[in-house]
């Protein structure tokens, strides 16, 4: 396992390096002078020169790239043109909120997707399977921003069952202020026993989390189904049948664990996808996460901020893949031996 681990880590580092270079390249594609973007259109030549100096725009490209990497590593992710705050600080505030949303959504997706996939596999080609396949296909095909708007309109605006937007009732900040530990509101509220904020956050989470969960639930259900059907066609399933086990217990007690392997790697893929899909949902529900930050940065053409978001999500994606590879050893004993 160690050699495999080292190889895998090396690969991850290489990809992250590539990600940084690519992000840098994209940001240098900016038509127009980034200095103008920072200093504003009415800036004097002196101000422009100062800005150019500040961003090192007069240096050669390789030097700029080197400086960029050095700054990133030392924790300087640039300054947002919009908030005028260090991008790193902005991200540290926004990312936990995104994690909260996407984490909840993924838990929901796993909790629903896997049992639904088992159900479809158990009754394959029968009615429940047909229903699951259509529904999961719809969940995968629905434009997430539209679903967000629809649920918001129906369940928040019209029926009033859930709050329309935001992370929690901001009035609570004065009545029962939250002590921050992890910056993830729901976790902080839980560990500090701040029930008003906890319940308020939970209420606010329902609709956006359901929307973000739609896609992952669909793919997890489809993948679970396919993996289970494949697994239950294996030789060992025949032996289990010959031992007298019924189809349901073959699926849940023998086939599910090996089948979870592909499902698990799927979750890493879906995780990053869900963060980015979450951007659109955050915009609709005014959720104070990366997505809202990114969308606001887009309308201001705030390149350092966008670069920061892009980089962060790509790195998170690489890490998620790494974690899943390691987890696979836990789920499947064969992978450990590799």
């Amino acid at each position, binding site marked *: 396992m160690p050699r495999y681990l080292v190889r895998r880590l090396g*690969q991850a580092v*290489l*990809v*992250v390096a*590539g*990600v940084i*270079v*690519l992000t840098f390249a*994209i*940001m240098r*594609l*900016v*038509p127009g002078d980034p200095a103008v973007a920072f200093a504003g259109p009415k800036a004097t030549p002196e101000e422009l020169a100062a800005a150019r100096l500040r961003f090192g725009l007069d240096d050669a490209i390789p030097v700029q790239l080197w400086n960029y990497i050095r700054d990133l590593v030392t924790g300087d992710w640039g300054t947002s043109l919009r908030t005028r705050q260090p991008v790193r600080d902005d991200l540290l505030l926004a990312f936990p909120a995104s994690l909260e949303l996407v984490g909840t959504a993924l838990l929901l997706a796993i909790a629903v997707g896997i049992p639904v996939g088992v159900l479809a596999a158990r009754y*394959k*080609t029968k009615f429940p*399977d*047909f229903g699951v*396949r259509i529904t999961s*296909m*719809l969940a*995968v*095909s*629905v*434009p*997430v*921003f*539209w*679903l967000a*708007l*629809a649920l*918001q*309109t129906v369940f928040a*605006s*019209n029926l009033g069952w859930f709050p329309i937007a935001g992370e929690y009732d901001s009035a609570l900040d004065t009545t029962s202020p939250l002590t921050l530990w992890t910056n993830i509101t729901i976790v902080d509220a839980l560990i500090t026993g701040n029930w008003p904020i906890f319940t308020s956050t939970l209420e606010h989470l329902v609709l956006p989390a359901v929307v973000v969960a739609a896609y992952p639930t669909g793919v997890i259900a489809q993948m679970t189904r*396919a993996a289970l*059907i*494949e697994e239950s*066609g294996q030789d060992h399933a025949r032996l289990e049948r010959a031992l007298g086990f019924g189809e349901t217990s073959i699926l849940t007690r023998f086939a599910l664990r090996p089948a979870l392997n592909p499902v698990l790697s799927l979750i890493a893929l879906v995780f*990053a*996808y869900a*963060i*980015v*899909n979450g*951007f*659109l949902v955050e915009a*609709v529900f005014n959720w104070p996460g990366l997505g809202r930050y*990114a*969308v606001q*940065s*887009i*309308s201001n053409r705030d*390149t350092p901020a*966008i*670069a920061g*978001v*892009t980089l962060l*999500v*790509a790195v998170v*994606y*690489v890490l998620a893949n790494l974690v899943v590879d390691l987890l696979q050893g836990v789920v499947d004993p064969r992978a450990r031996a590799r």
Partner: protein
Amino acid sequence: MTETRVAEEPVRLRRTLPKVTDRFAAAGAVLIVVILLATILAPWLAPYPVDRLDLVHTLLPPSGAHWFGTDKVGRDVLTQVLYGGRTSLTIAVAVLAMSAAVGVTLGVVAGYAGGWLRDVIMRVTDVFLAFPALLLSLALAVVLEPSVTTAIVAIAVTWWPWYARLAASVAASISTRSYVDAARCLGVPAPMIILRHVLPNSLTPVLVQISLDAGGVILTAAALSYLGLGAQEPTAEWGLMVEQGQTLFTTNWWVVTFPGLAILVTAFAFNVLGEGLRNALDPRRVVK
């Protein structure tokens, strides 16, 4: 201990392909044909001229005259949806054509050549794959001027690696076949072998991948337009229509509902067809 494996008996407990799968895929194909026809024939099918403003009849609910109602400047929503399909499908076709062309070329070269060239191409592919499609498109669309063309380029940049990876694996397996070996020994030049043997064999999996991806591309394009990074006014585009109507959802549901449904149905149709094709062509998944 060495163990010799005896080939399995050919009497397989192979289930016959369930009819459900066929019907499923066929339904997808039929839907796609309908959607394609509707968008191609939009100029003849649309009840009103596209972009015709009618400030007297704004925000009319669906009726006999306006099946899908009218929007806030009095445009007929059905007409806009039909024309919007042209934008969405154009983007999808352009993105998939570009991605497949670039990806397959690089992938086939990587898979056929092997060695360091393969390593370099595949590592670059890995880097691009580390960005979720919408994210990289988003970053690119920000630095470039937002337009349909930008959206196409931005999405294509994130999509080609999938084709590169697919083509590389097909090419790698083909280039070890004996007839390719034979051709190589006879001194047939590499480009010729690639053109004659490797490329044709990559075609089927690539086509399946294209039909699987079309739904995703349409969703990504709609999302970019919704964020204001794709199609711009006055181009009719589904994502853009949703964006423009979103504040009216509570009061005038039809303005947002129909373009959204159009995206949903189109993506759904492609996904269903893609899955059906994959199942039909991948013998490992026949059980589905």
